[in-house]
């Protein structure tokens, strides 16, 4: 545990770690004429946990959609970090990405060459109500045409990782909000994507559930070792989770400033109540206020 944590910290703090994705002067104007993003420059490095922090409507979700390839930038470009870092796969997960994932994604993805597979967690759980928990988690593997036996094995493992193995045959409406979100996370991780995009995933949950999912998410991240881009409007959540916080200005969204959170992982409840955590939150809060003032 501790080795993994220190290794993470070491990796994140080295600016020399190659980026997994870079946004160069990205602007996005919607058909309605709204300029959501302007001159957004951003480099996300392998293995980082980065939060995009900003007020509602600052375009942070738009940035995430652009990275996911769900929309095209109006100006600027998004480049993917050349050859992907060989990251240590989950010990029990066979890697199919080399065979299926990369090839398919490279062809289909709109985000350009070398775009790796991404996992996406929406603000709502976004589960298919007509399918069981298990079928929901299977979906990405089935869409990618992964052989059924292997897919079953991986979906089962993904459910085990979020602690919902015994709910595989339940339907989404039988689950609580927190459990639905766990299923959503399991689905995003089931393809073992190098990059996980999360769009305010816990915003609709109560605080107790949110704290618990924060902890579970950090544990998963340290275990699996993927890169996470986490969109949030909560200062406290961003400090607790990430090792880098990108503070964004109000519309049109740009990077206002960047804050490093150098507290070591694993982080737990003792970190949440520490003076260090409070200090980071204060700094982030002040940065956010200045960011919001700068726009008006």
């Amino acid at each position, binding site marked *: 545990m501790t080795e993994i944590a220190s290794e993470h910290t070491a990796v994140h703090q080295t600016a020399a770690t190659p980026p997994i994705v870079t946004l160069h002067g990205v602007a996005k104007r919607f058909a309605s004429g709204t300029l959501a993003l302007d001159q957004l420059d951003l480099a996300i490095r392998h293995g980082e946990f980065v939060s995009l922090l900003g007020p509602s409507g600052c375009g942070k979700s738009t940035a995430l*959609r652009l990275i*996911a*390839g*769900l929309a095209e930038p109006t100006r600027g470009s998004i480049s993917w970090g050349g050859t992907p870092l060989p990251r240590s796969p989950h010990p029990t997960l066979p890697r199919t990405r080399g065979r299926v994932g990369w090839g*398919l*994604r490279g*062809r*289909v*993805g709109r985000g350009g060459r070398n775009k790796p597979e*991404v996992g*996406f967690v*929406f603000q*709502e759980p*976004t589960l*298919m*109500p*007509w*399918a069981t928990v298990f079928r929901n988690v299977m*979906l*990405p593997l*089935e*869409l*990618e045409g992964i052989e059924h036996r292997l897919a079953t094995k991986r979906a089962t493992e993904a459910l085990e990782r979020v*602690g919902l193995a*015994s*709910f595989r045959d339940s*339907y*989404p*409406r*039988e689950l*609580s*909000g*927190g*459990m639905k979100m766990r299923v959503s996370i399991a689905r995003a991780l089931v*393809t073992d994507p190098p990059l996980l995009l999360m769009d305010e995933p816990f915003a609709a949950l109560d605080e107790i*559930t949110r704290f*618990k999912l924060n902890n*579970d998410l950090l544990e998963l991240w340290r275990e699996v070792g993927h890169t996470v881009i986490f969109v949030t409007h909560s200062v406290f959540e961003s400090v607790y989770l990430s090792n880098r916080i990108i503070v964004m200005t109000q519309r049109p969204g740009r990077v206002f400033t960047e804050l490093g959170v150098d507290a070591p992982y694993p982080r737990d409840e003792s970190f949440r109540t520490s003076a260090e955590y409070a200090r980071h939150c204060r700094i982030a809060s002040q940065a956010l206020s200045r960011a919001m003032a700068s726009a008006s």
Partner: protein
Amino acid sequence: MMSDADHPRLREGVTIGWSRIVLPLVTLALGVVAWDLLVRVKDIPPFILPGPGLVAATVVSDWPVLLDSLLVTLATTFYGLALALAGGVGLAILFNQSRLIEHSLYPYAVILQVTPVVAVAPLLLIYLPQQAAVLACAWIAAFFPILANTTLGLNSVDRNLKDLFEIYGASRIKVLLRLKLPAALPYMLGGLKIAGGLSLVGAVVAEIAAGSAGAGSGLAYRIAESAYRLNIARMFAALILLSLTGIAIFFALSVISHLLLRRWHESALAGEP
């Protein structure tokens, strides 16, 4: 980790209040008694208003004739509904896949719906063999609710789920089969429930139109024929059978809908329709 493992609402929808079954039956019994009293007290002759006892006796005595007619009407209704389901869903999928086709054809689907089928039936009987014309009327009456509802359902897919399918590079056909059609299923079944009754209406209308041309043998034709003969009791008997047929169709479709949706859709939680 399992602290939030509650199962909300699993227990709901199990109990159907007895009042929903007993009260309508009590109302029915009161109605029949009132009808019987009215006929007896006022001494109304059977060729104007037969009593419930005579109508029941007619159902029994005329059963062979009525059963044949019932089967004919049932078959027409069923085939009309099946064709309407195929046509409505097929057309809805086509509309969903191509704006061009939707814009070209949708207005005519509406026109087909808003033109009263009773006015179209005589014309169809001239151009088509009688059985085909009756079937066509049942189809015309039934297909639009299925088309309209399925179209609505196909267009009501969760946007995030659509994005999710795009992220994983799903093909159009997979989006249709795995996402749009399941999402549209509750809407489609809602349309089917309406269409079941309408298909019967279409069949009856065409039978009556055809009956005047002298050849039908469905229940509606029995009604028309009995009217000419002033056999009011048989008219009532056939009418009751038609009504029971409509109820049975609605009930059967409700059960199908419930079975398909009970595990996941909110509508199936509130108990039987």
